[in-house]
């Protein structure tokens, strides 16, 4: 039981806190305070319940055989360990999270690729000093659309 008390895994709260996004800090704090409260409660409990001094009671209680009966029954009582209903749910949530995060990672990699392509485009671009109008239109196709929308120079609604 003593092995169980410590828990299967010691959680590195500092490393955990580092990874929490800023908008979920309050939830993290709630979780941490809950865990801390549970830990302190567990720590304050005695390792073993106080054993009953049967010999003393055998002397003290006058009714013959009562203490023996009690002791026998007490030894027979098996205290059931509480049923675990939450772990399965947590496991399932973790699985869901795994798939979700895989999706997110794929999307994120895609986005990173896109951003890096754009950065590369800017890095390899001809300096503005040496750019012709055609080249500018090539690099910034949004100008083309604007030209279609506003065919007259300077191609944006000045009157607005």
């Amino acid at each position, binding site marked *: 039981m003593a092995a*169980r*008390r410590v*828990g*299967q*895994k010691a*959680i590195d709260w500092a*490393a*955990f806190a*580092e*990874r*929490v*996004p800023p908008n979920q800090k309050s939830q993290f704090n709630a*979780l*941490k305070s809950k*865990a801390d409260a*549970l*830990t302190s*409660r*567990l720590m304050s*409990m005695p390792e073993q*319940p*106080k054993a*009953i001094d049967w010999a003393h*009671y055998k002397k*003290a*209680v*006058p*009714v013959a055989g*009562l*203490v023996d009966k*009690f002791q026998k029954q*007490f030894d027979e*009582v098996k*205290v*059931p*360990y*509480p049923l*675990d209903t*939450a*772990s399965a749910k*947590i496991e399932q*949530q*973790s699985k869901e*999270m795994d798939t979700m*995060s895989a999706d*997110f*990672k794929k999307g*994120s990699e895609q*986005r*990173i690729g896109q*951003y*890096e392509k*754009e*950065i590369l485009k*800017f*890095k390899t*671009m001809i300096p*503005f*000093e*040496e750019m012709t109008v055609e080249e500018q239109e090539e690099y910034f196709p949004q100008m083309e659309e604007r030209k279609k929308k506003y065919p007259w120079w300077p191609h944006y609604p000045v009157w607005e």
Partner: protein
Amino acid sequence: MISRLALRNGSILSAAVLRTATPCVAAAPKLLFHTSQQQLMPKKLPEYGGQLRLGLVPEEWFKFFEKKTGVTGPYVFGGGLIMYLLNKEIYIMGPETVHAFVALTLLVYGIKKFGPGIAAWSDKKIQAQLDQANTDKAETMSVLSNAVEEEKKEQWRLEGRHYLFDARKENVAMQMEIEYQERLNKVNEEVKKRLDYQVELDNMHKRLEQSHMVRWIEQNVVKSITPQQEKDILNKCISNLKTMSVA
């Protein structure tokens, strides 16, 4: 003037031809007047115009003459040409000529006077536009690289999700452990309470019996005392007191 510049530089024209004529250059060399080196596309545009002499005549014309006639040749040719045109009345001096002179003078004066200011002003404008464009570019690049950083950080954060689930599992385990401990304690306490009750019951029996006995004995003793006995005792007490007072 532009076309002259292009011819002088050669490169722009050839570049333009290269761009429009997609077949490779080596296959059609006779089509090109200028067989300069192939220029890669980011080519700086000419910023300054060609050189002039007398403020009017292109330098190249003088160069062309100098090979054949020496340094003075072009001047002689120019002067002679004007003389010839005037002499043969091919060009006729009239009031329009005077007008043209005056107009040209005014034009030149105006350009010399206001030109540099306007040039500086437009240069400033261009520089401002360039600066704007460059800052926009830098900003966009920093925004993009920030976005990449953020994405990477978000991924890193997501990697840490096992901390959350570990913590929650740990919490559940701890809660179960606490519950189990509490149950054990409860059983113990209940048994102990019952045993204590038995002990207490016994104690109380004993106490009650004792007190009852004491009371019973007392009553019996009091009952057994007769009036005669009481009188005797009183008299005895008084005599005792008398003897004590004498002594």
